[in-house]
């Protein structure tokens, strides 16, 4: 437990100090989105890494949060903070209800069902023009405000978003190390065995699904207020896939890995710029190579690789001696 606390403190201090290095750079802006992606990846990781349930429709929950916040605050003049809460509860409730039938499914079927759900919600964003403004996007969403403080610059948004991220990480780390976390891992490894020892697997899975959807919805609300403009393509199937990639590349079941995955994938376009149109090929290739050679993600893969390299060198040294 102490170790967890130490890890968390190091992470928090780094997060809070990071802006000092990037004050005038556009990277501060990118880091705001890294924060939002981290929340989403952590949320998906709770479901995927801990409960072992895949979702290819998480972008829809993200989108629901964004649209609820956007529409209710802009069209109906609700208080943004209150709306954020309402959006989280509504989306969580929705996920809770859908969770019962959908989480009965396993593996590939679950993947397809969540994908279908995501596409249906995406179509509603696109077609319900009277409310969402449809494909042209919804603009004019206000920035969040706390007393006199208006979150309208990258620096302010950075701290806003990352406070939520830190809260979310803290929650997830605690959850992972609690009784619930152990029960979840039991479900992940052997659901039948977990049931036999008295874990209510079904309810637990549905609860985690709802929690994961709620965190995604909050990330969506933040996104809406940071961007002040939302449009359906930001919540489509490819975004769900991107989130999945973040979790897998970072490492299933590793909260900090999800952060790393979000950071890597959000920054990836920066490194791939020299590749011009080739980046989509690289992206697909990276996904395949990672799954084949680093199934545990970066957090396990890099230290393993390092150990192997060190081991090799030692091995060589020994043979020489």
């Amino acid at each position: 437990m102490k170790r967890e606390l130490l890890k968390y403190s190091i992470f928090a201090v780094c997060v809070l100090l990071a802006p000092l290095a990037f004050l005038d750079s556009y990277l501060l802006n990118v880091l705001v989105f890294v924060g939002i992606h981290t929340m989403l990846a952590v949320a998906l990781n709770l479901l995927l890494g801990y409960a072992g349930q895949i979702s290819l429709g998480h972008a829809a929950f993200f989108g629901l949060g964004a649209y609820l916040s956007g529409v209710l605050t802009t069209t109906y003049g609700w208080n943004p903070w209150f709306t954020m809460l309402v959006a989280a509860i509504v989306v969580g409730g929705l996920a809770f209800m859908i969770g019962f039938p959908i989480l009965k499914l396993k593996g590939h079927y679950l993947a397809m069902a969540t994908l279908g759900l995501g596409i249906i919600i995406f179509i509603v964003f696109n077609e319900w023009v009277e409310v969402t403004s449809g494909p042209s996007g919804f603009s004019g969403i206000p920035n969040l405000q706390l007393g006199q403080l208006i979150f309208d610059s990258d620096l302010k948004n950075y701290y806003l978003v990352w406070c939520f991220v830190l809260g979310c990480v803290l929650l997830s780390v605690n959850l992972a190390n609690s009784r619930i976390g152990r029960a979840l891992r039991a479900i992940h490894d052997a659901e039948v065995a977990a049931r036999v020892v008295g874990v209510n697997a079904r309810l637990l899975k549905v609860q985690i699904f709802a929690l994961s959807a709620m965190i995604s919805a909050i990330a969506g609300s933040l996104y809406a207020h940071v961007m002040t403009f939302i449009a359906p393509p930001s919540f489509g199937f490819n975004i769900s896939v991107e989130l999945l990639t973040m979790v897998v590349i970072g490492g299933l079941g590793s909260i900090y890995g999800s952060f790393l995955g979000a950071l890597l994938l959000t920054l990836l376009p920066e490194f791939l710029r020299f590749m011009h149109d080739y980046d989509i090929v690289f992206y697909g290739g990276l996904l395949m190579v990672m799954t084949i050679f680093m199934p545990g993600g970066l957090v396990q893969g890099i230290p393993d690789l390092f150990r192997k390299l060190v081991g090799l060198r030692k091995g060589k040294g020994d043979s020489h001696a």
Partner: protein
Amino acid sequence: MELGTQLLQYLLSGLSTGAIYALIGIGFSIIYNATGIINFAQGEFVMLGGMLTLFLLSVLQLPLWIAIPLAVLLAALVGLLFERLAIRPLRKASPISLVIITIGGAILIRGLAMLIWGKDTHSLPSFTGDEPIMLAGATLLPQHLWIFGITVVLIGLNKWFFSHTISGKAMRACSYNPRAAGLVGIDVRRMVLLSFVISAAMGALAGIIVAPLTMTAYDVGIMLGLKGFCAAIIGGMSSGLSTVIGGLVLGVLESLGAGLISSGYKDAIAFVILLLILFLRPQGLFGKPESERV
């Protein structure tokens, strides 16, 4: 124009789209039954069929009847490579890793197609002219007849392959119980490879016969693949007739939905059906709870 003719037109349009969904759906089922994998790259084979034919026709100036089999062959080769390079190294991985690797493969294939052939949409010439055929007030194109004809032939071949050839029977054995199949001397790995080759070829053929009507581009595979999967789910992941019916039902419902209800929500119809079936009848619309999976 009275409602009857209108309905007939919806029905015909729906059936031709549905036939394509059926072919793609069967591709999904064949791989699923042999390996338990849902191949998210299935739609990319459909795209490859159309784009390869186009390439052979326009760049290499081959005649159509050579270009088509060659394109199917090349797509099958891609299927083979895909299995060898991506699926085989992961044989013991979790379903999640398998889902992700096929998604990665789909992105890679799509990206390569974009690099090689560009981002433009292209049209393929019809096999036999564009003169509409009248049918009780509704109209069809000769290409529609090709679609129906080729679908019927493929389904027949498929049936024959799985019930009358050694390889087909061996593949069925693998789908029932791979370990037992291995014990009686069936090379399970070869069967898995074969399943990828067959479904790549079927997907490619579907992509070729539909391209003269719908055009083709590097990114047509995503939506077609998803619809094909819906067809397979409705048919309970069988590689036989029920997936075909699944595809046709889906196509007709979409067409009726677009004509009578709302064209905007047409795509949603397919996915609502998908969810309902998964929730209520995971064994498919026609299957018995313990249905035979071929």
